[in-house]
C-alpha cells in the first residue's frame, strides 16, 4: 500500500517537471562525450544491460584504457564508432528530480558546422567545452559564434580537465577573461563559467573539494535551476495556421502551434493577409478548452465570424503585426554537399508557408573562425553569410532575434529536394537597397528630371533664396527641435520661405506604419530625404530635425537631397545631459520597455564632418549663427 502511494507521488512530481533542451559543443579531445556520459550515468539513466554491453565494447576498442569509456555509450552508428568521432547530431534524454533534459550532442570540428547549427536550433542553452590546458582556441570562438548566430540565450563555459592543471584558479580566471573579451561583440545575454573535471566527476554532478576557490553551482545544479521560461516571446501574438479543421458545417477551427504571444478567449484577432477581423470564441487545447493559450501549445481556435482563413495564413492582434514582405535580409548557413548555384529557384519553407525563393545577392561570407567578412560568389558546405532573398509570394515574418519561429526558414533544392540551406531573418530589406520597379532607362530619366517649365533661377529670384536643407542631427534630448523652431521663426521673420520637418509629425502620417527598428528607421529617413529634395527643388528651404544616428544613413540622405544642398548641423551633447533633459524614453529603455533608442541601446555615430557644431551643454543653441552661415553661403538672402 505504502509503496503505491510513493510511486504515485513520484509520478505526480515527475509530471510537473519542465523540459530543458541543451546543446553540447566541443570535440572528443575536450572530453565532451565523457561529460555527457557523466551526466547520464550519474543521474542513473544508464540501464544495467547497456552498461554490461559497454564493458564488452570497451575491451575491444576502448580509448580510455581500463576505465569505462563513456564516449562509447553515446556514439551510435557503427561507422563512426570505428572512426572514433561523432558525425551527426545525437539526442540523449535524462531526468533529475527537478527537471527533464534533452541533450543535442554535436561534433566540434569545422566540417561539422551544419550539425552544430542543427543541434543549436532547438536548444535553450549551450555548454561550450574548453580544455583547461589549451584555453580559448579557434574552435571555442567558432562554437560561440554559432551559438550566438542561432540565438541561444544561455551559455555555460565548462572549463574541463582542471585536474590536469592542478585545479589552478589562475588558469581558470585567465580563460574567463579571454572568453569574455571576444564575446563582447556577440549578443549572448547570459554566460556562466564552471571549472570541472569530467573524467573525475568534479563539479559535474557534485561540487569538488579540489577547487575550494570556486563558489558557484556545479554543472548539473546550474542546469536544473537556470530560468528559461522568460526567454519565450509572450508579447507578439503570432498564430500561423497549420491546418483548418472542418468536420461539419457548423464547426470551423484553425489549428496550429502558437509561435509567440498569448491569445485569450474574447480577443479580437486579425487574419493575414486578408486583414479581416473577428473574435475568439473558443480555444481547444490538448487538454480541453481553455481561456487562454501560449507558446509552445498546439491548439485549435474558433472565431465568431465566418472569415476565409487557410493554411499559411496567420492570426495576430490587430495592433501588433509581423512584416509582410517579399524581400528580406538573412544569415544563411549552407547545408548541402552540392555547392550553391546562385541562379537556383529554391523552394522556401517558412512557418506553414512554402513559396519559391531566389538569392538576390550575397552581401558577405563570415569566416567562422575569425568572424572576418569577405566577398563571396556562392557558398559551399558549412559556409555562412549574409544574403538578400526575394520570394514569389510575400511572407509574414519577424526578425529572428525577436521571434525564432517566424524568423527562420529553410531552402529546398528544387531538383534533389535536399535541405540546401537554413536561414535566420535579419529584417526586411533596407529600402535604399530595393531597386526601382521602373527599369526602362528612358522612362526613369523622364521621371527623375520632371517636366517643370519653371527654371531654378526663376525660383531663386522669386524667393530670394536657394532651396537647401539644414539637417540637424543629435541624440534624443539634445535640443535639436528647440533649435529648429527658433531657426524657423528667424527665417520666416526675415522673409524666407521655409518648411520645418521633425520626427513626430512625419511619423504621425507619412511614416505611420514604421517602427524604430534599424530597417524601419532607414525607410522613414529615406522618405524624409525625398520630401526635402522635392521641397528644395521648388526653391524652398527645409529645416529637418532627426536623430539620424549613423554615418551611412546621413550619407544616403545627403545623396538623395544632393550633396551641395545638404547642410549638416550637429547638436553635440553627452548622453547624461540628454537623459537629464528628457528622461522618459531613456528610463523606458533601462526598464526594458523600449528598444532601439540611439545612444542608449542602439548606436549613435558622431558625424565626422558637420558644417556647424553646437555643444548643447555649454551654450544655448543660437539660430543667429546659422543665419550668418546661410548668408555667408548666399543661401539666404540669395544673390
Amino acid at each position: 500500500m505504502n509503496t503505491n502511494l510513493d510511486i504515485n507521488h513520484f509520478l505526480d512530481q515527475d509530471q510537473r517537471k519542465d523540459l530543458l533542451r541543451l546543446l553540447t559543443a566541443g570535440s572528443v579531445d575536450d572530453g565532451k562525450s565523457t561529460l555527457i556520459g557523466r551526466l547520464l550515468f550519474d543521474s542513473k539513466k544508464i540501464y544495467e544491460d547497456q552498461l554490461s554491453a559497454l564493458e564488452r565494447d570497451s575491451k575491444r576498442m576502448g580509448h580510455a584504457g581500463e576505465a569505462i569509456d563513456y564516449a562509447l555509450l553515446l556514439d551510435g552508428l557503427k561507422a563512426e564508432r570505428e572512426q572514433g568521432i561523432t558525425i551527426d547530431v545525437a539526442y540523449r534524454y535524462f531526468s533529475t528530480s527537478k527537471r527533464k533534459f534533452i541533450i543535442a550532442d554535436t561534433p566540434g570540428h569545422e566540417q561539422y558546422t551544419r550539425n552544430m547549427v542543427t543541434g543549436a536550433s532547438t536548444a535553450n542553452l549551450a555548454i561550450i567545452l574548453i580544455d583547461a590546458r589549451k584555453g580559448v582556441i579557434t574552435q571555442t570562438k567558432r562554437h560561440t559564434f554559432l551559438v550566438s548566430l542561432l540565438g541561444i540565450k544561455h551559455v555555460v563555459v565548462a572549463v574541463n580537465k582542471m585536474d590536469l592543471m592542478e585545479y589552478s584558479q589562475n588558469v581558470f580566471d585567465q580563460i574567463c577573461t579571454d572568453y569574455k573579451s571576444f564575446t563582447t561583440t556577440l549578443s549572448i545575454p547570459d554566460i556562466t563559467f564552471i571549472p570541472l573535471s569530467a573524467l573525475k566527476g568534479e563539479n559535474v554532478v557534485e561540487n569538488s573539494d579540489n577547487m575550494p576557490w570556486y563558489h558557484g553551482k556545479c554543472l548539473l545544479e546550474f542546469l536544473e535551476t537556470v530560468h528559461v521560461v522568460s526567454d519565450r516571446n509572450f508579447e507578439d501574438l503570432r498564430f500561423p495556421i497549420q491546418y483548418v479543421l472542418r468536420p461539419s458545417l457548423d464547426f470551423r477551427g484553425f489549428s496550429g502551434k502558437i509561435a509567440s504571444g498569448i491569445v485569450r478567449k474574447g480577443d479580437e484577432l486579425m487574419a493575414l493577409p486578408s486583414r479581416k477581423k473577428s473574435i475568439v470564441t473558443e480555444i481547444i487545447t490538448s487538454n480541453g478548452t481553455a481561456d487562454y493559450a501560449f507558446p509552445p501549445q498546439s491548439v485549435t481556435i474558433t472565431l465568431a465570424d465566418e472569415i476565409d482563413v487557410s493554411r499559411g495564413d496567420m492570426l495576430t492582434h490587430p495592433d501588433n503585426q509581423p512584416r509582410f514582405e517579399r524581400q528580406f535580409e538573412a544569415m544563411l548557413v549552407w547545408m548541402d554537399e552540392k555547392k550553391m548555384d546562385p541562379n537556383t529557384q529554391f523552394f522556401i519553407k517558412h512557418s506553414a508557408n512554402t513559396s519559391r525563393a531566389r538569392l538576390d545577392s550575397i552581401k558577405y561570407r563570415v569566416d567562422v573562425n575569425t568572424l572576418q567578412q569577405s566577398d563571396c560568389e556562392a557558398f559551399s558546405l558549412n559556409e555562412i553569410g549574409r544574403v538578400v532573398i526575394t520570394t514569389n509570394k510575400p511572407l509574414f515574418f519577424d526578425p529572428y532575434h525577436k521571434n525564432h519561429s517566424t524568423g527562420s526558414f529553410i531552402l529546398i533544392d528544387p531538383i534533389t529536394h535536399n535541405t540546401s540551406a537554413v536561414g535566420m531573418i535579419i529584417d526586411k530589406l533596407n529600402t535604399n537597397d530595393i531597386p526601382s520597379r521602373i527599369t526602362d532607362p528612358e522612362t526613369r530619366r523622364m521621371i527623375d528630371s520632371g517636366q517643370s517649365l519653371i527654371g531654378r533661377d526663376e525660383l531663386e529670384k522669386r524667393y530670394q533664396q536657394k532651396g537647401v536643407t539644414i539637417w540637424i542631427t543629435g541624440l534624443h534630448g539634445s535640443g535639436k527641435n528647440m533649435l529648429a523652431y527658433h531657426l524657423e521663426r528667424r527665417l520666416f521673420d526675415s522673409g524666407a520661405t521655409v518648411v520645418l520637418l521633425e520626427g513626430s509629425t512625419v511619423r504621425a502620417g507619412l511614416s505611420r506604419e514604421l517602427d524604430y527598428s534599424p530597417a524601419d528607421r532607414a525607410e522613414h529617413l529615406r522618405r524624409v530625404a525625398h520630401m526635402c529634395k522635392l521641397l528644395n527643388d521648388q526653391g524652398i528651404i527645409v529645416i529637418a530635425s532627426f536623430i539620424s544616428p549613423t554615418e551611412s544613413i546621413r550619407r544616403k540622405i545627403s545623396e538623395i537631397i544632393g550633396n551641395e544642398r545638404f547642410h549638416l548641423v550637429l547638436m553635440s551633447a553627452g548622453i547624461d545631459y540628454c537623459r537629464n533633459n528628457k528622461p522618459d524614453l531613456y528610463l523606458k529603455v533601462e526598464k526594458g520597455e523600449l528598444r532601439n533608442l540611439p545612444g542608449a541601446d542602439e548606436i549613435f555615430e558622431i558625424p565626422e564632418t558637420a558644417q556647424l557644431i553646437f555643444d548643447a551643454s555649454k551654450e544655448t543653441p543660437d539660430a543667429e549663427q546659422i543665419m550668418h552661415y546661410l548668408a555667408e553661403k548666399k543661401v539666404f538672402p540669395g544673390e
Partner: protein
Amino acid sequence: MKNRKVAEQLNNYTINNLRELEAEAIYIIREVASEFEKPVMLYSIGKDSSVMVRLAEKAFYPGKVPFPLMHIDSKWKFQEMIEFREKYTRENNWDLIVEYNKEGFDSGIGPFTHGSKVHTDVMKTQALLQALDKHRFDAAFGGARRDEEKSRAKERIFSFRDKFHQWDPKNQRPELWDIYNTRVHKGESIRVFPISNWTELDIWQYIRLENIPIVPLYFAKERPIVEVDGNLIMVDDKRMPADMVAKVKMRMVRFRTLGCYPLTGAIESEADTIEKIVEEMMTVTKSERTTRVIDFDQEGSMEQKKREGYF
C-alpha cells in the same frame, strides 16, 4: 517582490514536459496531414502505438483523423493483441487496414521453422514494403523513440526513404527548428516519428495521465511460459513445437514490449498496474529492447534492419 510576481505570472504560461512533448507531436501529425497526399499511421498495437493513436485523435478533435491506421500482421502476434486491435479501432471509429505477406504466409514462414531473421525479414519488413507500395502511401507514421536504442539517437523526426524504402544514414536531411522538409519525388516517402523525443517513462506517464487503454499483456498475470535460451516465451497457440510445450509452467509474468509471441520474451513480475510497472522499471534496471529476441542477431542489427526498411 516584483520579480516574484513576474515569476508567478510566468508560471501560468508554462506547460510541463509531457504537455510540451504532446504539443510537439500534435504539431508533427498535423504537418503530415497538411503536406502529404496519402499518409498512414503504422499501428503495432503496442503501448507506443496506443499513445500515437491518442495523439492523432487529439490533433484533429473534434473532427475525424484524416488518415487510416495500418497493421502489418506477421500472423504470429499474440491473440490478445488482435482482439485489442479490433475492439479499439471499432469503438473509436478508426479506418483500419490490415496487411500481411500472403506469399510468405502461404509458404509457411514462421519463427519456429525458419528462425527469427528470416521470419522478421519476410513477414515484417517485406510485408511492410509490399503494403506501402500497394497503397502508394507517401508518408508513414511510426512510433519509434530515440532513447530506445543507440542507432535511433540520431534518427530524424522526418526520415527520408528512397524508392526502395531504404534509409541511408549518410544522406539524411538536416532538421532544424520545427521546419520539416516534406518534399518527395514520386515513389519516395517519409517515415515520421512524432514521439521521437519521448522516453519510456514519458510513455507510461502519458498512458496514466490520459487513461489510454493498452493490451492487457503489459500487466502481470499467470501465463503459460516456456524458457528458451533464458527468454520467457508464452504459449499463445498450437503452433508452438510439442517439445517446447512439454516444458510449460504457469508463471507470473508481464511483457515490456509486444511483437510476435515466439520472439518476445516476458519478464517475471507482479506489476499489475501502471504505477507498479513504473516502480518496477525504476528499480529493476534492464533496458526495454533486451526482451526482444530479434536484436541479438548481430552487432548493430537494428541499424542494419533500418537500412533495409524495417523501422
